[in-house]
């Protein structure tokens, strides 16, 4: 899961969270675990659709890339637009909390160090108001 330990402290500091967490392979591993948790969670699985699973997986991949501070072009407005129909379905803080719970559990399962999990969780948390249309 993790990339090789950087040889010196400087390299460690300059690498982005995305790189330190393990880049694209890490995202792929996380998405599979995370999406299984979400689909099994009756509190929130209705928001993750019975539609095309491949499209859902691509969306979750974008989410994790963003949470890891990786390359993405999403703006707050994009987040609002993408989730507006879910807000109409009743998406609220409790559901957002459940997703945060699964995000954390997924990263723990993948042995990501606690400080990196905290960084990823903070990035995901920063989207709360946009996702919930507040």
């Amino acid at each position: 899961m993790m990339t090789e330990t950087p040889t010196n402290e400087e390299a460690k500091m300059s690498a982005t969270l995305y790189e330190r967490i393990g880049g694209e392979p890490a995202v792929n591993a996380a998405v599979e675990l995370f999406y299984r948790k979400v689909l099994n969670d009756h509190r929130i699985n209705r928001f993750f659709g019975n539609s095309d699973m491949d499209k859902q997986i691509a969306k979750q991949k974008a989410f994790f890339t963003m949470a890891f501070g990786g390359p993405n072009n999403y703006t707050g407005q994009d987040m609002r637009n993408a989730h507006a129909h879910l807000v109409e379905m009743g998406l609220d803080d409790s559901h957002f909390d459940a997703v945060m719970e699964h995000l954390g559990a997924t990263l723990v399962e993948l042995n990501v160090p606690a400080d990196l999990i905290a960084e990823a969780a903070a990035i995901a948390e920063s989207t709360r108001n946009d996702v919930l249309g507040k």
Partner: protein
Amino acid sequence: MANLTIEEKTYSCQPDETVLDALLRGNVNISYACKKGNCHSCMVRSLNGAPPENTQVGLKSTLKAHHHFLACLCLPEQDMTLKLPDQSEFYTEGTVVVNDMLNRNTLLLIIAFKDAFEFNAGQFVNLQRPDGLTRSYSIANTPQESNTLEFHIRRLPGGKFSEWLHDGIKAGDTIAVSEPRGHCFYLPERREQGLLLVGTGTGLAPLAGILTDALAHGHTGPIYLFHGSREAEDLYRIDELRQLAAQHPNFHYMPCLSGPHVPEGFTAGRANDVALATLGDLKGWRIFLCGHPDMVNQTKIAAFLKGASSTDIYADAFLSTPV
């Protein structure tokens, strides 16, 4: 600088410019969203050799094998000839050589071509009637020396195209056939992997091709085929498949009936339910699903929850287009 060719037109790609940016600069109508390789919206296909490896990250193996890649990640290493997903199709004339019934409502149609028709078993083509009406059908055989394609055509009540194929054509007639499409096919890699094939009705067609291909490549892992319909009269190739299972110890065939009458030798229940109940953990399995879109979507998720990786689940849900 590399040249990018799409049909008759050529676009120049500047150093450090991606294929996507070069095409957008040339006003090519190509879909895209994230420009970072995540969303897969800008997937195109190289027609002149393999694209750079880093442009195929995260794509299914079968898409990689056919040189699909993400235009937003590609800094071309050489001139490229490209195909966009919605580019107009090239049709070839074929001749009908067999039209027989497989069961009470399913036609076996075999079309022969003068030249080799390249495809992977499990892909589909569009068939076109002289007036332009077009429908997609899965190819049911593997590439043959005789250059023939086999199709299983179910008669849909009021279905213009299937009624035309059932009633309006005969051996010797010609029919227009598109290039093969779709990425639901077998690749001869990881031969020890378990293969799960679930199909309803004429969803057997692509699965039959995939099965033949896997056995011909000496696939060593267990192969399970669940073919379902409501009544036994709507299944077909039952004896052939039973014989195949007797010849290949790693191949298991279970015909499933969801209706009330289940004769000996058949399993009661929907094919997808029976499959999931018969097999436990699907971690590491490769899965092919063909048939009714609801069955396909539900089973995709169920198989994923039983441990199959999303990149190992292949499906071509065929929509029966209403009249």
